[in-house]
């Protein structure tokens, strides 16, 4: 089914001002469990400005064409990590890509590998389960210092890359191993573990390495680099996973 907005081009929206608006087709994977068992594609003609992000275009559809379109978004500036979705087949944050860079027809799907609840909203619990399983918090065995736990700039730099994670799930849901094996921890959980394993203030490295040494741990990684490609924060995810493998191999941190 194609929904075409029949109102004049000057409809309120991102392209309300300026010269004749350019339009783009958004082909969105819709699924509403209250009415259908099957997901289906719907297309929308959306006017856009060169400065519009994909999220603006999707919200334009929600406000002007179909208010039932469901998606998560919060900060809309690439920090909260709510609006990860599969855009033209690759995972992206809708608030970090410009419509003009995506061609004349943009396919939008929920991130893959997690149960879809409605439209672009997926059940994130399995993803958070994997995150919790690697103990993503400071573990110490010494006395608590009276002030802060100091760390040298070099020690801090060791795990700097993996502190940037915003848990949008773009990496985990781009991983073909995760798609096929829901028990695999997935790239994000390994990134979260990496952030503490290589922290000089943390004493739980062995515990976390043991967890990631299990059958569904780092050894399932096939280095396809989908995760590195998907990460909106530019984290070298595959590299982090390999560093954990190396740490397991040599137990030298």
């Amino acid at each position, binding site marked *: 089914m194609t929904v075409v907005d029949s109102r004049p081009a000057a409809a309120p929206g991102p392209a309300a001002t300026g010269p004749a608006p350019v339009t783009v087709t958004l082909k969105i994977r819709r*699924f509403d*469990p*209250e009415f259908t*068992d*099957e*997901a289906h594609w719907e297309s929308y003609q959306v006017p856009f400005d060169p400065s519009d992000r994909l999220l603006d275009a999707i919200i334009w559809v929600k406000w002007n064409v179909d208010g039932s379109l469901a998606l998560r978004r919060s900060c809309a500036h690439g920090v909260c990590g709510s609006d990860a979705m599969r855009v033209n087949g690759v995972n992206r944050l809708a608030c970090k890509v410009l419509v003009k860079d995506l061609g004349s027809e943009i396919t939008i799907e929920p991130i*893959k*590998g*997690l*149960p*879809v*609840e409605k439209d672009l909203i997926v*059940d994130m619990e*399995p993803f958070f389960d994997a995150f919790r399983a690697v103990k993503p918090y400071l573990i110490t065995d010494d006395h608590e210092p009276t002030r802060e736990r100091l760390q040298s700039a070099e020690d801090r730099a060791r795990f700097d890359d993996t502190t940037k994670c915003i848990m949008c799930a773009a990496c985990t849901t781009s991983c*073909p*191993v*995760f*798609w*096929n*094996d*829901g*028990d695999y921890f997935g790239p994000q959980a390994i990134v979260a573990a990496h952030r503490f394993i290589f922290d000089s203030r943390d004493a739980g490295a062995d515990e976390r390495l*043991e967890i990631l*040494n*299990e*059958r*569904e*741990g780092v*050894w*399932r990684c096939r280095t396809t680099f989908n995760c590195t490609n998907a990460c909106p924060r530019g984290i070298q995810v595959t590299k982090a996973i390999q560093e954990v*493998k190396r740490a*397991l*191999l040599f137990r030298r941190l």
Partner: protein
Amino acid sequence: MATTAAAPADRGAPELVAPRSPQQRTKPGAAKVRSNFELYAWVFMRISGLLLFFLVLGHLFIMNILDGGVQRVNFGFVAGRWASPFWRMWDLVMLLLAELHGTNGLRTVINDYAERAQTRFWLKMLLYTSAFLVVTLGTLVIFTFDPDL
């Protein structure tokens, strides 16, 4: 690919289609068996791959390119080579490494792509049986080869 997950009771929705197949092979709460098997399998793949690179290329060069190539390979040629323990060991090591390397690779493929526990189990049984037969038969021939046959 589609596996249905049970719909939560508090939502009046039919079963949700999930493109994901949780296997739950380790039951939650069950005692975790600490094992380095996956680590060793991973290391084995790297080392055997490296060795096989030289063993297989050397084998192909001797059998297919070196003086006369494949045309000169016959019973007598094999008997002549296997008179030396060096070539028997070469072939034995190549057989074992290649078979185990391939078996472990296929084990990974089955783990990745077979969805149902039963399918996984039987595919792996088939795989291990065939690997066992190939290794046994090959090893037997290498050790019991009789040039005067």
